[in-house]
């Protein structure tokens, strides 16, 4: 699933490890989401979107046009 997690994270100056701690997941999971190898669960997707202060559809998109 395409997403804007990496862009939004770097805009905040956060490392993958830092975002992982905020989300209570591993750094590998954040990396896998950013590289679109892993589609997060709905709760994690919503938590990520809330963390970035964006609607979830602005962070994740199934059509490839976030």
């Amino acid at each position, binding site marked *: 699933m395409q997403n804007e997690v990496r862009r939004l994270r770097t805009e905040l100056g956060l490392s993958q490890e830092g975002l992982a701690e905020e989300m*209570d*997941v591993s750094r*590998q999971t954040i990396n896998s989401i950013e590289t679109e190898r*892993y589609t997060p669960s709905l*709760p*994690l997707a*919503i938590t990520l979107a809330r963390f970035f202060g964006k609607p979830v559809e602005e962070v994740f998109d199934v059509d490839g046009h976030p």
Partner: protein
Amino acid sequence: MLTAIPESKSAKGQLFRRRWLPVWSLLLGVLIFTAMAIGGNLTWGFVTLGLFLAFSALFWFGEGNETIGGLAGPRRDERWAMINQRATAFAGTIVILILIGGWVVELAQGHDGSPYSLIMGAATVAYFGAALWLRFRS
């Protein structure tokens, strides 16, 4: 901040998550060693116990590593839970294929198919039981 994975954060829950696999490996090793010792195969019992001790130590002391931590539990998040579920399903599929092979060979040799038939029967009941349970729960 919402928590992504609503899991127990109690000290007891955390301790269980961190230590269940190394403790399980150790207990299994001792159990198998005991069985082998009773069976008079002490040498291979020690070898097996050593292997299980090595696994236990790896999971106990290696939890700082993300991969080992994900496998062993302390760092298991939803992605690791998915990996574990898929790996378990894959291993289960392999075991089922081996069971079918063993069953067929036993039948072809004129035997009654045991113990493969019994294990296959138990697996079939377990699968449909779990599927029914999950069907009503989800």
